[in-house]
């Protein structure tokens, strides 16, 4: 009947044997149609990449840099006094006097990077981490800051970072999307934060659940058929392929009709590849424990981190894991002490677990791990004594693996931690740097739309060469 489909089917039946067979199926599928029509066909980077894949651990809201990675002794000294400098022209809310950190800092590892007692596990990994202490954005509101961080723009709909990477590099594994976002927040830009805007739709992120769905229940939409068994469905797909080929013969050669025929075979493969990737029960008890899956407090984000590793090692170019409950999780305008402790407790062990696991599997050297939030928090107090406001003027993010200097710290905020002061890194610079690490020149990664060449970095951006290993 359809020998080429059947032979592939035989192969696919063995896909339970594992990932290798899927990759083989891809190889065969790849022969069927030229790559020129596939926006996700693997593309050569502009220069040798330092990282082949990236994982972004996104803390929804603003983790307080002055309480976690950027200690400010002057806050202890001047606690309760007014901030002596000039405040930003636009702030999100009014804040009062300087507020010292409720947590103690210590220096860790060979590098001596300071980490507060909020992140004891990550503290053990500092020698693998490259901190950027001088990131700054422009927007002090969640929506604008989140969009700016993910798309480079806070007032226009633009493609997201992951979509640019998918567009620029394509994907190595055709049975999985190039860009997956785990439990993203729908607020503050929602889909725009993983959307493709004017880039080809295949570049957009495929969400697994959203922030309101517990991660163990999060699934890719329509990945399973609730009633039809795989055998019957396979038979349906054969009938479908036959009907489609007859239709194509009547219509004459047509790329989009041919593309749609292929898309069903791809979907069928994704249907088995995705659950396989999501099946963390295949991981050893020791690995699961490493990510904190044995503790209800850390199990949620631990599962996200483990899922991120599994997707990443299967060739998903860009995975984002979002730490957010059904509120803005890292947003302590009040209850800083209680809630930052709760938040840190939930992510600290899973993050350290991911770094450790990637390292021991030899994946960290070409996997870029990114940690950060939308902004930091003010050194001044909001409310009576236990809150801080949004602060986009200077905050900390960190990178690990993928060709960055391990155990390194770059840039600094001012003495109180309000403004980025030394070696400032704008969000556009940060994006330019991330693209560079993935082998892409942010000025050459362009897409022509409505008569103009668009970039992730608009008309700005400087690669921070100082942090390259």
């Amino acid at each position, binding site marked *: 009947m359809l020998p080429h489909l059947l032979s592939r089917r035989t192969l696919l039946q063995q896909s339970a044997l594992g990932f290798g067979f899927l990759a083989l199926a891809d190889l065969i599928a790849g022969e069927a149609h030229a790559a020129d029509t596939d926006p996700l066909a693997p593309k050569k980077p502009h220069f040798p990449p330092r990282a082949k894949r990236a994982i972004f651990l996104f803390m929804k809201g603003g983790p307080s840099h002055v309480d976690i990675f950027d200690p400010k002794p002057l806050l202890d000294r001047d606690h309760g006094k007014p901030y002596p400098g000039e405040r930003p022209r636009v702030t999100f809310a009014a804040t009062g006097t300087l507020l010292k950190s409720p947590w103690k800092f210590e220096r860790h590892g060979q590098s001596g990077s300071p980490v507060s007692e909020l992140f004891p596990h990550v503290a053990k990994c500092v020698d693998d981490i490259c901190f950027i202490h001088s990131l700054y954005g422009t927007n*002090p509101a969640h929506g604008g800051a989140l969009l700016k961080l993910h798309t480079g723009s806070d007032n226009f709909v633009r493609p997201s970072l992951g979509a640019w990477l998918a567009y620029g590099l394509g994907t190595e594994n055709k049975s999985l999307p190039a860009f997956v976002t785990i439990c993203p927040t729908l607020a503050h830009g929602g889909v*725009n934060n993983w959307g493709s805007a004017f880039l080809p739709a295949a570049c957009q992120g*495929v969400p697994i659940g959203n922030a309101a769905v517990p991660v163990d229940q999060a699934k890719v939409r329509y990945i399973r058929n609730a009633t039809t068994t795989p055998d019957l469905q396979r038979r349906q797909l054969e009938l479908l392929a036959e009907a489609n080929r007859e239709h194509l013969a009547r219509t004459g050669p047509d790329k989009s009709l041919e593309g749609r025929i292929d*898309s069903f075979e791809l979907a069928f493969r994704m249907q088995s590849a995705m659950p396989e990737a999501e099946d963390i029960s295949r991981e050893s008890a020791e690995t699961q424990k490493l990510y904190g899956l044995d503790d209800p407090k850390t199990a949620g984000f631990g599962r996200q981190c483990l899922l991120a590793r599994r997707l990443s090692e299967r060739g998903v170019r860009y995975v984002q894991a979002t730490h957010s409950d059904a509120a803005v999780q890292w947003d302590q305008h009040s209850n800083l002490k209680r809630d930052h402790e709760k938040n840190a407790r939930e992510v600290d062990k899973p993050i350290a677990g991911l770094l450790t696991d990637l390292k021991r599997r030899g994946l960290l050297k070409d996997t870029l791990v990114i940690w950060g939030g939308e902004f930091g928090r003010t050194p001044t107090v909001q409310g009576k004594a236990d809150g801080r406001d949004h602060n986009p003027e200077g905050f900390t993010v960190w990178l690990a693996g993928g060709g960055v200097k391990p155990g390194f710290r770059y840039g600094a905020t001012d003495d109180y931690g309000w403004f980025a002061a030394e070696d400032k890194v704008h969000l556009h610079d940060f994006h330019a740097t991330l693209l560079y690490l993935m082998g892409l020149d942010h000025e050459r990664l362009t897409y022509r739309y*409505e*008569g103009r060449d668009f970039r992730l970095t608009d008309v700005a951006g400087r690669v921070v060469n100082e942090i390259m290993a």
Partner: protein
Amino acid sequence: MPFAALRLPVLTALAVGLFGRATAADKPPTPEQVRFFESRVRPVLVEHCTKCHGEKTQRSELRLDSAAAMKEGGASGEPLLGEPAKSMLLRAVRHDADVAPMPPKGKKLSDAQIADLAQWVKMGAPYPAVVLKTHDRDHWAFRPVTRPAVPIVTDPAFPVRNPIDAFVLAKLRAAGLTPAAPADKRTLIRRVTFDLTGLPPTPTEIDAFLRDDSPGAYATVVERLLASPAYGERWGRHWLDVARYADSNGLDENIAHGNAWRYRDYVVQSFNADVPYNQFVREQVAGDLMPAADATTRHRQLIATGFLSLGPKVLAEPDKRKMELDIVDEQLDTTCRAILGLTMGCARCHDHKFDPITAADYYALAGIFLSTKTMDSFKTIASWHENEVATPAELKCRADHEAEVARFKWQLMALHWRKATSAVKSARRCAAEAIAQLEKNAPEVSSAMGLTEGKVVDSPILRRGSYLSPGPVVARRFPTVLAGEGQPPLPKDHSGRLQLARWLTDPANPLTARVMVNRVWRWHFGRGIVGSVDNFGLLGEKPTHPELLDWLATEFVANGWSVKHLHRLIVLSSTYRMSSAHDSKAAEADPANRLLWRANVRRVEAEVIRDSLLAVAGELDRTMGGPALHHVKNRAFLFDHTSKDLTTYDSKRRSLYLPVVRNHLYDVFQLFDAPDAAVIHGDRATTTVATQALFWMNSPLVMSTADDLAETLLGRTDLDDAGRVRTLYETAYGRPPTAKETARALASVAEFEAALAATVPESGKRRQRAWSLVCHVVLAANEFVYVR
């Protein structure tokens, strides 16, 4: 109304490459140099230098806004560029002791900026030419629309039914190509029914057409479709793409546009009533300022201005002035792209790099919108203005309510005059309570998002788009390239929106009619005569059939801007009626079918996919109009931090009545390329991705449609199984199955029944399930979603 008379092109393209060093002389800058200049040098010059040394002012007779001017230098005669060590420019920005420090007054550039300038001078100061200047009015789209002569061509196999055919045939001839044969009647009715109504033709409609042998049979179908309410739903939906229509704000604070549906219904009604397009545009830009004979017209016009209020807004923007300017920018950009096909947004920060639109043009137009009131409050969460559109019943209800309150107040007052006995005190308490209760439950009256006049202002030019660096104030006016110099001033006591609306729809405006006929063409053929439907500027695509475009534009205006007249011209033409038959010779010469040698094979849009599924299942609810959101009130959060979107899409009504939730569009629509409605989309992409296939394989919508179809087919006790297959094909594809297809379907039913024997013991259920599996395949096939 002023429209610039056509002038001969004045070529002001600056000579490329007049660089300081002899070695670099006359060599055009390399792409790397251009990139370096545009990203590192031009921004510095624009921000810090050209205000005093530019087009308007030339302190010390020096200009820094072109290569030639730079080479010329200033009054001192010292070389501005040249050797880095001696360069006057570098010495000035370094604040060397013996020169006047620049920028002056202690505003020194950063070290990085100075280093960039030094590197640039060292490269030989490559200064990319600014190719286009404001005199470039010769661009085709800015020229007046002409009425071109219709080519005289004939073809026995391709009757020239109207000038469209003549223009198309002449181009095909010139390229040595021949048009495809006419499509058969089944293909044609399926195509035109999808095009005009967004729904598949029913077997009954197809039969009626097949049986009608009269020469006017096809025209009868077209008139039936144009008169059908489904027409306005289909074409209204197209316009809603242009109007970036949505039922929520999206962007940062995703709150409900609870009354946006009134605008949606206005659009649908306007298309159905064939409201002249010039009136349609005027109402949307300035309906609140137009005279109205009665309350219905007045409301209609107020609702129309929702067009300018529907954009996404950063409602929690802490910088209130910025928020206001961003909203104006969105309105200005949407108006210009939607109606004129011009991208004005670029000119917010600098003169448009490609189109002859200056920052002064931008702020002159922005003044009109700044003088308009869109927002009632900018306080977080900012609140948009709504105009009252109360029905007589609501007005009566409100009057009754007010009378009731007045009555109690009167009673209360009367009670105060009486001696305060305990009975009187108790009566007072009762009256006061009644008043409080009544006031709390004041009846709501209908309102609609829209505009009203604000405080009239002229805007300064804002350098780099920032209000912190205002430049000279420009009087409100229209873009010079279109409206010419010396425009009559806009009134001091009105925003000028009414004048803008009239100017946009002036028959002499070269863009408005062209842009709209091109949109209509795009939605019929899948591609515009100008491919870039929202951009007619210099970087837009050139028209494939410029004479045809102009002929259609003049025909459109001459026939009272009637959109239905355009439809008749187009769908009755031989061009539209061609088959999609493939021709390898033509495909080689014109692979993208730009010259229209055949009909395009097109996938239907997201809304049509869903509507078709419901239609073939016999489940489509044809109720028209009304509110979209039932679970949230106007201005309430669709979802905030919670990510819990409670919007449901289980309605059986046509897709355009489903909520359009920005940031979380209905996933079926998102999957099939419906835009997020944040910006205008005159052109939708058609993508094919595996996640779409997952929808066809596994989604409840497709599965339930297959079940419904199977149930309907098995309920047809008047048919045998072959008759059921025939009905299935006629319902889904508008054609009977071939013998092979019938045999295959019947064999599949049997095969599935056998396969289900173990799991579905009850034979009736098993049979229905087997039929459902076959129906599912028919729905998932290409033929269901592609129109030939």
